[in-house]
């Protein structure tokens, strides 16, 4: 009996001690993050998680926000939508976060859209699908550029080259299918005819069958839209089949590892992407240069084994949108939401954001820069053209 009493006394002391310790330190501002750190989309979720952890450390090292440290609670949903739903509920009701960054994938973002709405918590998604912000939901925002803008930029580039008949090949997952939708939707207006429409499963190992069909069609160019290894395999298979028509890729191609994997087959691929990959080329007049260079340098310093990618950039933009709001209006959900909705001219890695009540994405097609692969590096397409002109 004595022992139990003693144990109880010690426990009481400990508990009160912890409580006391907590009372002294300023309570952190809690922000939630849901990323697919494992599962099929983990190569996107990983840099996103790394990025928010990096920013957390940076902000806290600088003394937090108005003396209060920030705490970013990262949840892994493994790319399973039921898990995302649970994770977001946990963040909202258990951890009482004031805003949420993520999820990584479009499906997961759409699944938690109603939860953010019902609980009145601002959520800034890092996923691409336009459905996330269209129709506009009061509490839901997103940072990646719009699929439609990517499609339009590609089509504009094609038109400038006199290409009118094209083939599209997309992966049969969320990213690929929303791309396919946008490509089909915007092609007629820009006078482009899709003469072949092929898909492949995300884990497929060979696309020569689809490409053979495309080769036999009248297509003057191919657009591949995916984030899976397929985007490399398509490039290589085209080379194998001796196809010389230009290959366009989606903004999902923006990862330096793809160049290495494509080898020679990667040369000349054209794709729209944010300017993170070509930050070294940007002139000093570019508003984004400072932000991009800092993000790239910080990330590379903190995670030397990982290469900076546009996906991490989406999380960077999302979190800073929230943090800027907190800095300005304090940790209040409704005020944060209003602040984000009224944010204008926010310079992020993805572009310059101008939000409004009708536009919860905030980016337009100027956020994209048409890029290409040259000499094993990403370079702006405009600079290549200039070189060609100069030679002439």
């Amino acid at each position, binding site marked *: 009996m004595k022992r139990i009493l003693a144990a109880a006394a010690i426990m009481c002391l400990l508990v009160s001690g912890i409580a006391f310790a907590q009372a002294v330190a300023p309570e952190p501002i809690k922000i939630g993050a849901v990323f697919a750190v*494992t599962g*099929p989309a*983990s*190569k996107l979720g*990983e840099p996103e998680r790394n990025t928010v952890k990096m920013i957390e450390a940076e902000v806290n090292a600088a003394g937090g926000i108005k003396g209060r440290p920030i705490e970013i609670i990262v949840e892994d949903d493994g790319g399973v939508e039921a898990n995302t739903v649970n994770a977001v509920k946990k963040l909202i009701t258990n951890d009482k976060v004031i805003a949420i960054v993520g999820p990584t994938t479009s499906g997961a973002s759409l699944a938690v859209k109603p939860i953010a709405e019902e609980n009145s918590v601002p959520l800034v998604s890092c996923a691409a699908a336009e459905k996330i912000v269209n129709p506009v939901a009061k509490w839901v925002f997103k940072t990646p550029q719009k699929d439609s803008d990517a499609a339009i930029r590609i089509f504009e580039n094609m038109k400038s080259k006199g290409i009118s008949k094209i083939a599209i090949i997309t992966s*049969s997952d969320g990213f690929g299918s929303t791309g396919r939708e946008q490509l089909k939707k915007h092609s007629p207006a820009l006078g482009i005819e899709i003469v072949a429409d*092929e*898909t*492949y*499963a995300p*884990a497929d*190992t*060979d696309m*020569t*069958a*689809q490409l*053979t*069909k495309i*080769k*036999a069609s009248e297509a003057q160019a191919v657009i591949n839209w995916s984030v899976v*290894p397929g985007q*490399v*395999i398509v490039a*290589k298979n085209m*080379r*194998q*089949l*001796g196809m010389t028509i230009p290959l366009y890729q989606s903004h999902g191609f923006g*990862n330096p*590892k793809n160049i*290495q*994997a494509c*080898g*020679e087959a990667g040369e000349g691929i054209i794709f729209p992407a944010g300017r993170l990959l070509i930050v070294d080329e940007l002139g000093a007049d570019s508003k984004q240069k400072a932000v991009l260079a800092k993000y790239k340098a910080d990330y590379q310093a903190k995670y030397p*084994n*990982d290469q900076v990618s546009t996906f991490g950039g989406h999380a960077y933009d999302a979190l800073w949108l929230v943090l800027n709001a907190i800095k300005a209006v304090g940790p209040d959900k409704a005020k944060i939401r209003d602040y984000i909705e009224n944010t204008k001219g926010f310079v992020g890695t993805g572009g310059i954001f101008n939000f409004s009540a009708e536009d919860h994405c905030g980016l337009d097609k100027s956020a994209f820069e048409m890029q290409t692969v040259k000499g094993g590096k990403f370079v702006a397409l405009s600079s290549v053209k200039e070189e060609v002109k100069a030679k002439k």
Partner: protein
Amino acid sequence: MHSFSITLQYIFTGIAVGSIYAMVALGFNIIYNCTGIINFAQGEFVMLGGMFMITLTTTWKLPSLVAFPIAVALVVLVGVGFERIAIHPLKSPSVLVLIMITIAGSILIKGVAMFAWGKEPCYLPHFSSETPINFLGATILPQNLWILGCLAAVVIVLAWFFNRTLVGKAMRACAHNRDAARLVGINVKQMVTLSFALSAAIGAVAGIVITPIILMDYQRGAMLALKGFGAAILGGLGSGPGAVVAGLLIGVLESLGAGYISSHYKDAIALVVLLGVLFIRPAGLLGSAEIQRLKKF
């Protein structure tokens, strides 16, 4: 492009893809014959083969010829270790429990690989040049020939092993009747370990030769295992020739399906054919209903 060359190209593609399925299916069969279970970690052996090869050649800068056997040996080690730790100690497990253990094993191996090699796909250079070989208007990569060559080599070695060596014959005895094999003095548990070693080796070889074409990441194994399982079933579980024929057939069906019907439904087309075959021949193309042991779950 001439329509003949197009068809030929589809068939080439199908054979190139199908030979990968065939190799995975062979790995399934060896363990199935010895234990009656489907080893769902087979796809992970393939993935590990490619991953080890990448590390050995790119990080350790070993020449391919040296790295190849080392990579295979490492995967064999993993296979044997898995069997020794998770399957060997069990007394009389049911088939379904064993399958669950292999699923758990595949999750574990996948997890370790995720930490070891990261989440991005890794890349391995082609064994020889990347210049495609043109044949009657259709093209094939030299690496595809390497894959076919390896498949042929694996088939020849396996045929020799099971028909000409004592150990191979002992393994076949286990496949036929475990109790009888035990009675004539064959150490059945050792044979099970050996079957894991052998199918890990085949998986590793498959992984190494296909990585230059398909890229390798820690999640690649699952899809390969699924297709390989389909091939093993279509050919008739336990039948070596069946696995090869069925693997190639599924590959060609997918490719022709994508070419002539619809790439959206190409996997479904192959599966419909598989199901159709099973409804007519419930034990697969080359499996016989009499020999098929009706394993209970």
